[in-house]
């Protein structure tokens, strides 16, 4: 399987006078896990939203295989997403929420049972979402992201709410998917966990890209946390 090539080209996004992302450029390659790392408010989520066509760039752009998300053939099938802002209807069961998605992206309903099994949510599948814990909602988000067996995964803070066992599971899953040739882009502010997960990094702070490259290039023998603090000059976390 060959994942998509993701590219940011001088992307900037402003909300009124607030600059969420400033002149972000860089490539995300298939076959590795790329981490977009930085504290809350660094612009990571906004950069992902622009990539996925949910937010319009103020200038520049974000491309997937040289095309905007909206111009891809079957983007819902090709790109799996786990976004913090993605919601589920609380009055509807987990299974039904996923069945809405299978209809929306045009895949077989039988896939729902498979992904529920992968994220170990089968037993709770027929309960309404309002009774789910944060961790269960996050697992459901992961199930939604994996639903179409996509060649590219874009995940925003996927470890939020997961217990240590699930975080290890998630790490192995992401590494395994990348090893199959898929593109995996994950944003996070949990540097200690990302140290063990990502191969390439984008380090962002206050909307600016502070560093990018492979882990060894960016960290230079230091831990990711030490490198981050040095790069952002003791920036906030």
């Amino acid at each position, binding site marked *: 399987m060959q994942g998509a090539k993701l590219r940011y080209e001088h992307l900037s996004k402003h909300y009124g006078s607030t600059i969420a992302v400033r002149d972000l450029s860089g490539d995300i390659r298939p076959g590795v896990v790329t981490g977009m790392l930085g504290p809350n408010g660094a612009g990571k989520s906004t950069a992902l*939203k622009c990539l*996925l*066509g*949910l*937010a*319009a760039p103020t200038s520049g752009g974000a491309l997937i295989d040289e095309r905007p*998300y*909206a111009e891809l053939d079957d*983007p*819902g099938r090709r*790109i799996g*997403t786990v*976004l913090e*802002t*993605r*919601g*589920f*209807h*609380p*009055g*509807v*069961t987990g299974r*039904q929420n996923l*069945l*809405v*998605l299978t*209809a*929306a*992206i*045009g895949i077989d309903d039988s896939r729902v049972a498979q992904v529920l099994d992968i994220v170990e949510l089968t037993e709770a599948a027929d309960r309404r979402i309002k009774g789910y814990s944060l961790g269960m909602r996050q697992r459901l988000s992961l199930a*939604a992201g994996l639903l179409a067996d996509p060649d590219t995964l874009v995940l925003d803070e996927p470890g939020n709410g997961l217990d240590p066992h699930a975080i290890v599971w998630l790490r192995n899953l992401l590494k395994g998917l990348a090893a199959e040739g898929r593109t995996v882009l994950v944003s996070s502010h949990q540097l200690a966990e990302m140290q063990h997960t990502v191969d390439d990094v984008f380090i962002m702070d206050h909307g600016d890209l502070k560093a990018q490259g492979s882990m060894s290039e960016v960290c230079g023998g230091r831990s990711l946390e030490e490198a981050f603090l040095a790069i952002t000059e003791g920036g906030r976390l």
Partner: protein
Amino acid sequence: MRTSLRAEVRKLRYQRSTYGILISACALAAVSSISLIATAQLPQQGGMFLNLTDEATMHLVMSSATAGYIFALVLGIVMSTTEFRHSTAVATYLAQPKRRTVMVAKMMIAAVMGVVVQLVSTTVGMLAGYIYVQRYDHFALAPDTYGRILAGSVLVGAVLAIVGVAVGSLIRSQMVAVVVSLLWLQLVEGLIIVFADWLGKWSMRSAITSVLDVAVRVRSPQATIDTTNGFGPWPSVALLLGYAALFAVAATVTSMRRDVE
């Protein structure tokens, strides 16, 4: 488009609010027709018009069974605003990033649901009125009259459901969208019709009144209310379709320009 249509159908099937809205529309339709019949039994003053042996009164009684159209509007609003209230719009637009396609699919399904809401609720309302009126002397309406009332009712249901989707997309807050819509339709336009009929006949409410044939003329020493000055049924149909098109275009253009949060 087909996938978006299927997704919209599933959303409505799975959400309890769909069934709640349908039941509420039926209840309102039944209460409307029965309460008019009951009102006709009260001592009347000032040349009031409610006489069940009169054809116009019986027509009004059965036409009042169309009152559930408010819920077709609410259904459309809920279809849109639920997406933003629970942030499911993110998944919707990730699955189908062509926002025009999503909006068109939503409006198509809303129109069908508006027809269903009005078909079911008006039938229930007319049936309730028909059964209740049997205990009194009354004018027997011709069967095709019921058919015409039903036809007007489903048309209004379809149009208002589309308008509801558009309003919900423009305003996004469910509570605000519902309150603003109902206040506008029931209060503001109602006042415009009564106090400035030259302007009021262009209102949506006036067009609905004409299509549903529920205009009233009350003259009493206390007040005169006349809602019969609107356009005829066919121009009113055209006016309603114009409103639906206007709202649909405004909502679609706006949705294409706004970020999805």
